[in-house]
Each structure stands twice: as structure tokens, then as C-alpha cells.
């Protein structure tokens, strides 16, 4: 929530000069978007969650469609339709869950805390988890549902890109942590290999595609796909290290990718192009800009000392413990990210000024400096001393992981017991049922 409000303020600050038409409507939509985002994160009732989740689509859609670039209409419609497909199926799952809960307890409720107590049969879990996971995976986005993201990012105005990267994508990962995994733990465990595989494909594929992008914004967009693969991998490592790494990585991605989009926005405003080949030698013309760019870029490749390192390290640490193969593959993503980021940086910032149009560019204005200052501060703070944040998220992680594990066991037990009852055997005591065949603790 804090990340959301902070980044909205920064995004608004960052768009003072970029948006020159229809200013009032633009800010109105930004604030509507913020309302939707806050509501989504704070909802503890599934229908309320869904309402905010959907309500958020519209402002974002208009932001992309009205203030976007060349292909804005296609980008906006694609963004909207992709997200809708996922979310309507989630709605069906939500309603089914509501009836399942009623069938067991006799009360109708959408309250999350109550639904955490429901025993859901394994077969139903699989479908319901798939429906939720599809909605969230599209939002994250995981490979192969990521194709809307580069388009939307490239076409969106800067503030839109920032919020899209920093907050909207997080709603997907948040959804996994808060809803999909605790509600359907057994299905989550069962589908772990699939999701890890997709996450790792996302990491490597995103990085490889990012490497060959000629457009700065597209490069950053694909790097997002790669980074969010790390988040997903950490989450499905199913241990505290992985989870805290994953959450930290979400935060980092919000900060560094948000900053990258802002930086691209800065030079786009001056040159009206985002092609890497158009730039070169910016260090000489824009020293302050280049320093900021350097730091943010390093944070994005997760150099020790920046925030990115802590997150990725924890994710890989967690993943090594449970998913060794995937962790090794994912580690190559770290190297690849260094490749594409450094290469891009070299082409944009170092060397001689080859394009004469770049000579007259102005460096950061005080307002822009004000935009970046808090972000840089966060990058270093989280990189050198992440403890305050980590200790904040630790207890809630432990609680949720316990919840997932306990529920998984409880539901297995419940399934086995009802299977026995169905088979005509009266389970005499809970212990008996737990050691019944097919029950693993």
C-alpha cells in the first residue's frame, strides 16, 4: 500500500511536462487508478477484491488508449481483453467457492478469513486454483501470458508504465500469495513444478528477448517479465527465504523498473525517440542523468549493495533448497540480465556523441531530480540494510506459510476421512485417518 501511494505521487510528479493535453481528465484517471489499486490490496472479501480488481482496468485502459503512443488502441484493447479473460474465470471460481463453503458450513460468505477454513476437495481445488492462477498469471504476467505487457508498456504514457510495472503487476503476485495459495494449498503444491517451469522460462526467455530489443521501453518491459519470473519462482519455492525474497523482489522491481521507465521518459521527452541506436555518449551531455541511470541499472541487474541483489539472492537461496534444478536455470537469468542491461547502457551512455541531435539535450531539472532522489535512496537503503523491511514481512510470511501447510494437511486428512466414510469404514479417531494410505504429511 505504501509503495502504491508513494509511486503514484512520484508518477504524477514525473508527468507534469509529458502530458500537455486533456490534463484534468488525465489526473482524474490516475487517482481513480490509485483508488482501485489501494482497494485491491486492502480487500479481505472476495467480491470486494474482484470489484476493485476490475474497476482498476478502466482507468488504465483509458490512460493507455488516450495518452499512449502510436499503437495505443491495439495495446489498450489487448490489455483489457487479456485481463478480462482471466478475471471472469476467477469470478466463476469465487462464486463456486462461495457455494462450497455454504455446502460445508451452511453460511454464505465471501469473507476471506472464513474461506480459509473451508475444506475443499482436491479435484475442485485443482480447477479453482487454475482459474485463480490464470487470472493472476495473466496479470503478473507469466510466460506464456505475457504478450500484452510489452505492448502496453511501450504505448502507455510514462506514468502509466511506471504504475503498470510497479503496482499492477504486483497485484498478480499478491493475488497468488493472498488468495490462490492459501485457499487451494494442495493444488498449489501439486502444480508447483508447472509454475516453476513457467517462471524459469519467463526469466530466461524474458532476458533473451530483452537483449535484442531496439527500443528502450520494450527492453525494460521484457526485463520485467524476467524479474517477475524470479518473484514467482521464489513464491513457489514454498519456504520463508523464497517468500521474503519474492516479496522483496516485488518491491525492488517496483522501484527499479519504475525508475527505469521514468528515465526513459526523461530522454523521450527531450528527443521523442526511444530507439537505443539514436543515442550514444549521453554521459558527456547529461552527466547527472547518467549517474542516476547507472545506479538504477545496476540495481536492476542486482549488483550487491543495491536492493536488487538482496531480493534475487533470497529467491535463489529459497529455490535452491526445494527446486534445485530450476534455481540453477534461473541463475543464468541473473547473468543474462547483466548482459542486456550493461550492453544497453554502453550503447546509450558511453562512447562518443555520434548523433548530433543529442548534443543540445538538457540535463535533469530540479523537479526530475526530486523524482529520482527518493528512489535512489531506497535502492541503496534496501541494498545495504534491508533488515527493517525483512523483519516487517517475516511474521506475516511465516503465518501464511504455516496456513498453507496446515491447510494442506488438514484437507488431506479430511479427504481421507471422507473417503473412508464413503467406503463404509468408520474412522475411529483422527490419528487413524492421518496414517491412512495416500496421506502424506
Amino acid at each position, binding site marked *: 500500500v505504501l509503495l502504491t501511494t508513494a509511486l503514484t505521487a512520484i508518477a504524477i510528479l514525473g508527468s507534469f511536462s509529458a502530458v500537455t493535453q*486533456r490534463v484534468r481528465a488525465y489526473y482524474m484517471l490516475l487517482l481513480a487508478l490509485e483508488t482501485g489499486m489501494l482497494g485491491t490490496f486492502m480487500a479481505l472479501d472476495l467480491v470486494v477484491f474482484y*470489484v476493485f480488481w476490475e474497476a482498476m482496468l478502466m482507468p488504465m485502459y483509458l490512460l493507455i488508449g488516450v495518452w499512449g503512443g502510436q499503437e495505443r488502441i491495439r495495446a489498450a484493447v489487448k490489455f483489457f481483453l487479456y485481463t478480462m479473460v482471466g478475471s471472469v474465470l476467477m469470478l466463476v471460481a469465487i462464486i463456486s467457492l462461495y457455494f462450497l463453503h455454504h455446502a460445508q458450513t451452511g453460511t454464505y460468505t465471501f469473507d476471506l478469513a472464513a474461506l480459509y477454513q473451508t475444506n475443499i476437495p482436491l479435484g475442485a481445488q485443482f480447477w479453482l486454483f487454475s482459474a485463480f492462477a490464470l487470472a493472476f498469471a495473466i496479470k503478473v504476467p507469466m510466460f506464456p501470458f505475457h504478450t500484452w505487457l510489452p505492448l502496453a508498456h511501450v504505448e502507455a504514457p510514462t506514468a502509466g508504465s511506471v504504475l503498470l510495472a510497479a503496482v499492477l503487476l504486483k497485484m498478480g503476485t499478491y493475488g497468488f500469495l493472498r488468495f490462490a495459495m492459501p485457499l487451494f494449498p494442495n493444488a498449489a503444491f501439486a502444480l508447483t513444478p508447472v509454475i516453476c517451469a513457467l517462471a524459469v522460462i519467463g526469466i530466461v526467455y524474458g532476458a533473451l528477448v530483452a537483449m535484442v530489443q531496439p527500443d528502450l521501453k520494450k527492453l525494460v518491459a521484457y526485463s520485467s517479465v524476467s524479474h517477475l519470473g524470479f518473484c514467482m519462482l521464489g513464491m513457489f519455492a514454498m519456504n520463508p527465504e523464497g517468500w521474503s525474497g519474492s516479496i522483496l523482489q516485488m518491491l525492488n522491481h517496483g522501484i527499479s523498473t519504475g525508475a527505469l521507465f521514468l528515465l526513459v521518459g526523461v530522454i523521450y521527452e527531450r528527443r521523442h525517440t526511444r530507439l537505443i541506436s539514436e543515442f550514444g555518449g549521453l554521459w558527456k551531455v547529461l552527466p547527472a542523468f547518467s549517474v542516476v541511470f547507472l545506479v538504477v541499472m545496476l540495481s536492476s541487474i542486482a549488483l550487491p549493495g543495491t536492493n536488487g541483489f538482496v531480493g534475487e539472492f533470497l529467491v535463489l537461496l529459497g529455490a535452491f533448497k526445494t527446486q534445485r534444478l530450476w534455481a540453477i536455470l534461473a541463475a543464468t537469468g541473473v547473468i543474462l540480465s547483466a548482459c542486456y542491461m550493461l550492453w544497453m547502457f554502453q550503447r546509450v551512455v558511453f562512447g562518443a556523441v555520434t548523433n548530433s541531435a543529442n548534443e543540445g539535450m538538457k540535463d535533469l531539472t530540479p523537479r526530475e531530480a526530486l523524482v529520482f532522489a527518493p528512489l535512489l535512496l531506497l535502492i541503496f537503503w534496501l541494498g545495504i540494510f534491508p533488515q527493517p523491511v525483512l523483519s516487517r514481512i517475516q511474521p506475516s510470511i511465516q503465518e501464511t506459510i504455516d496456513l498453507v501447510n496446515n491447510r494442506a494437511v488438514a484437507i488431506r486428512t479430511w479427504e481421507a476421512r471422507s473417503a473412508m466414510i464413503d467406503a463404509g469404514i468408520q474412522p475411529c479417531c483422527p490419528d487413524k485417518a492421518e496414517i491412512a494410505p495416500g496421506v502424506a504429511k
Partner: protein
Amino acid sequence: VSPLAEVGYGPGDFGATLPVWALSIASMIILLVCMSRRRWAAPVSAGTALLGLAVAGVGAWAHRFETRALFNDMYRVDPYSTFFVLVFVAIGIVSVLLSWDYLERTNLNHGEFYALVVLSALGMIFMAAANDLIMIFLGLELMSLALYVLAGFRKNRFESNEAALKYFLLGAFATGFLLYGVALVYGATGTTNLSKIGGFLVASPVRDTPLLVIGALLLFVGFAFKVSLVPFHMWTPDAYEGAPTTATAFMSAGAKAAGFAGLLRVAMIALPELTPDWTRLLTGIAILTMTVGNVTAILQSNLKRMLAYSSIAHAGYVMLGVIAGGAGGAQAVLYYLAVYSVMNLGAFGVVSLMGKGSDERVRVQELAGAGFRYPWLGIAMTVFMLGLAGIPPTAGFMGKLLLFRSALEGGHVMLVIFAVLNSVVAVYYYLRPIVVMYMTQPEGEALEVSSALPAAVALAVLVIATFWLGTASGSLTGAAMQSVLAVFP
């Protein structure tokens, strides 16, 4: 003993049937006023229509908790019919307000238009309140005949004549089906009274006599035509396109609500014993209706045709509630019909404002850039499109939520999955007007928009209602539930 008392209608029942009296009298007065060809005839007719509808609304509201069986149990005053009376009255009032300026602009300003609207609303009320197949037939005819004339009201336009003729020929055919169905059901059960048919079937050992099944099927065809379910939807796009836009608004909302009101009562009171066997057939029709409606709507470049196909798709959604049955399903149907009427009236209302004077514009492309030049119109259109698409926090979302919930409760999971995927398809074409309004620039001449105070007021109310019924939906869902529970055991 007076003849009225003989059929079970005492002086005490006058208040409860005030809607019928008010609308009948209002239509007579309008027709008398119209005999004068003075300039004031049309505004006076419109005023009379508004007054009659308002009195009808007040009368219905005052007796909203009552249940009475009148005229030998042919006409019921009960919360269910009252719910629909209020919906029809609201539809009528909004249509009159929308037409006020529109008719003058398009040189159609004859008071008879309002008489037809009022008469048609009266027919709708009979359909919702009828507890007898004959009465349903009479209501259907009264409503339809008025609508046929309304569709052809622009008598010097080719499309309008085509609309009226097509609507009339196919409609007459469908009414024939309905009447034949009534006859067969009467043959099978010995009565046309809905409650008695239901009672007969509960007591009867043989339910699947061919006579009854065919009769019920023909009844269903008659209703399916009126609410435009696939494959009985062919008339809809042409009739909606050719009719004057405000008449389209009126018939798209009113006829659909009335058709479902009648269908639901027949299904729940007279033939509940049959419905389980029908689930598969109805499921197929619902899926077909949604898919054909939505997919065809994507291809339309004419806004009125697009909305026509979308209204076909909406009939498919409503079928979810009919199939689910039970109190939950019926409640969802009532709620959805009410909010669908609000949003559809609004969408057609916006279309009716497009273009200056008698120069009507109805193509999607012509909205280009209108969103920023006419901000209020743009916002209204956006709200109605999002509402019809079922995006929260509009009423359309709550309506779909209730329908899906009732269908899932009935165990129709596949049907619901088809419905939600269909609603994604629908989003695509509902977004198009928004895209065009806000994201493109007009080629050539920009759209001009007429301004009319009554229509603006009506649209503002509809916009607020779309949000209000979506966020504070409790009052309407509660009312729908009470209406259903009072009638269906």
C-alpha cells in the same frame, strides 16, 4: 349483483388496478387530443402520457405489498407484477422524455406516438400480471401491435417500413405459435389458468403427453420470439435499426422485460413439473443465443444494429436465471431485466441524440472525437457501455454476478463458463464506441450532437441509476427477492 363483482372485482380493487386504469384513460385522452392538428397537440400528448405513467407508478407503489386475484383469477396484483409494473412505468417515462425532442427534430411529432407507447406499456403490464394464458396472449398482442406501429412510425423512410413489416409478419407468426400452444395446453390440462395447470400437473400421473409437451414448446417459441432468443431473433436487428431510435429504446427494454415476465410466470407457476426435462434444450438455446448475439455484434458498424445484437446476447444471459430456476434464479432475472432496461435505454438514448436536426447519425465511426467535445455525452455513453459489458462497479456487473451465481448454484457450470467467456467477447465491442470517442479523431466532418433538456435529464438519471444500482444494489435485489418469494412457493 354487478357484472364486475361477479368476476371478482369490487370497488375496493380499484386502487390496486390503478395502473391499468391510468394508462387506459391516458391513451384515450391522447388519441382524442390528437384529433386536433394544432401545434400544441404533441406536447399535450406527451404531458398526458407522463401524467398517466406517473399515476400508474404511484398506484403500483401504493399497493406494492398486496396480493389479489381479480377477474376470475385472470389478473393478479402481487409483488411480482408490481415489480414489473414499476419497471414498465419507468421505461415508459424515460422513453417519453427521450422522445420529446427527438420526434420534433425528426419531423415525427405526432401525439399518437405517445398513445402507442402508453398502450404498449399497458400490454406489458397485462403480460406480467396475467395468471391465465388467454390474458397473456391478450397482453402480448396489445403490446406487440402497438410496437409494430411504433417500428413503422417513420412512414416516409424505407428502413422504417421494412422494420414494421418484418416485425409484424414474423411477430404474427410467433403469436400464432403461442396461441396454438395455449390451445394444446388447454387440451392437455383442461384449463388456461396458470395455477390450475400447475395443480393439474402435480396431481396428474402422466405428464409427458405429446399434447402437453408440444403445447408447452409452442408457448416457449412464442415467448422466445418476443425476447429474441436464437433462432427466433431474425427480426431484431432490422426492427431495431429501422424504428425511430427512441421507439427502439422503448421496445428493446420493455418488450424483453415483458416477455421474460410472462415466460417466467408460466415456467414457474404452470409448468414447473416440466422444466427439469427442458434444461438441456434451454441450455443449448442460451449458449447459442449468447454466442450468436455477441459474435455478430462485433461485426456491426451501425450502433443500433450492434445494440440489437447485444440485446440478443443479453436475452441469452437472462436465460441463465430462467434455467437455474428457483427463487435465486427468478430474483436474478428480475434484477437483470431492471438494470438491463436502465442501461439499454441509456445507450439508445445517447444514440438518439447523435446528429443535428433531422440528420440522424448512427454509425460507430461517427462518434470519433465526440468524447472530448461533448464530455457529458461521452461519460454517459461510457457508463452505459461499461454497464452492458458488466464491468464493476456498474449495475451490469451485479446483474451478471447474480445470474452466474444462481446458475452455479443450480450446478450449470459449463453454461456459466460459456457465459463468462461470452461476456469477454462482448467487452470487445462495447469498448469500441469508447475507443472511437476518446482515442480517434474524426475524418471529415465532426459529429454534431443535439441538446435536449428532457433527454439530458433522463440520461443523467439513468447514469446515476447505473452506478447506484450497482453499488447499493441491496434495495433492488431485496425487492426482486420479495417479489419472487411472494409469488413462487
